[in-house]
């Protein structure tokens, strides 16, 4: 079963909490483990927390569940800055963006939509155990 939500917020720090809460609500709905929610929130926050990635005033976060895969897209984003950071090493960033996204989400790539950049991420959903 596919479930999808799209949240559009101003690209401003106070709205990161709104995004976190919505992702948390979705995680509850999907029965995701807390650590999966944490990984998802950290990945999205890292993008939303960098003004260099902003294109205009707003940003959207799309989350879809397709079977056992959690697919997340964030955009529109400034493709040049994002591509630069995705290719940068730990020597430049301390913890490279690519490394952080790989650790939290697994697969990630920059895609073009209507001439703007979107970050696509895919994370396997661990199977939860039924509670007693």
């Amino acid at each position: 079963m596919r479930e999808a939500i799209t949240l559009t917020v101003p690209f401003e720090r106070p709205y990161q909490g709104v995004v976190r809460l919505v992702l948390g609500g979705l995680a509850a709905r999907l029965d995701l483990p807390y650590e999966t929610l944490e990984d998802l929130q950290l990945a999205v926050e890292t993008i939303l927390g960098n003004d260099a990635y902003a294109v205009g005033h707003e940003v959207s976060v799309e989350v879809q569940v397709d079977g056992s895969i959690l697919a997340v897209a964030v955009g529109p984003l400034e493709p040049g800055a994002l591509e630069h950071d995705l290719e940068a090493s730990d020597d430049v960033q301390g913890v490279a963006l690519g490394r952080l996204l790989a650790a939290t989400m697994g697969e990630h790539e920059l895609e073009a939509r209507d001439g703007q950049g979107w970050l696509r991420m895919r994370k396997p959903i661990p199977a939860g155990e039924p509670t007693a």
Partner: protein
Amino acid sequence: MNVPPEKNDRELLRRYHHQGDVEARQRLIEQYLPLVRSLARRYSYRGEQLEDLVQVGCIGLIKAIDRFDVDRGVELTTYATPNIIGEIKRHFRDKGWAVRVPRGLQELNVRLSRLMEELTVQYERSPTIAELAKAADVEEEEVLEALETGQAYATLSLSAPSGGGDDGDDLDPLESLGEIEKEYEVSEDRALLAPGWKVLDDRERRILELRFFEGLTQSQIAQQVGISQMHVSRLIRRSLEKIREEIAVDASDLHPNA
């Protein structure tokens, strides 16, 4: 004749740095107060009085003026901005709670931290929101809200020397403040060379290394380091932010024209 502001600044900076003219320094501070106020306003949603943040930001401005290299050809605005923002952010970290959180949510956050550890052991995996809600006997929405409040708390006070307790102690009851600090092994190269890592303490470095270089999960790290999973989460976020700020400040020092 109107002197362009940047020329006026340069003249004042030269007078201060080359001739020790403290009046020139004072004029620069006054001229850049609007910039400090503008930057401080960005952070005034966090429950702090704007005037307090302006005072903190002024510290950053003064540092920038005092450290400014007149011969580098950069504008003071470019150099001062990351210094002002850095000072304001450090202020929030040092204060503990970034926003005022209702006591009930703080207490629920404490309970959830304990339940998280218990359920992780019981299920041998990270619990779901529903499982946490059931164990805490609250609604799932309350769990989410309490978890969110944990992100509002900067736990710098918990890594201070023992005896420095404050409200923040309640959030991580599994940690004993009286414990002797463990020594944490960190890859020497990374600790010495990686940008931003120099501002981290040993535990923060170790946690980032375990999470992003050795691929451990938060619960695995919590077990290894001897703290709660939620505390690991906060430390990861805080450490990443510290690295980013340090890199931003270093960049403005090295490349003032950027």
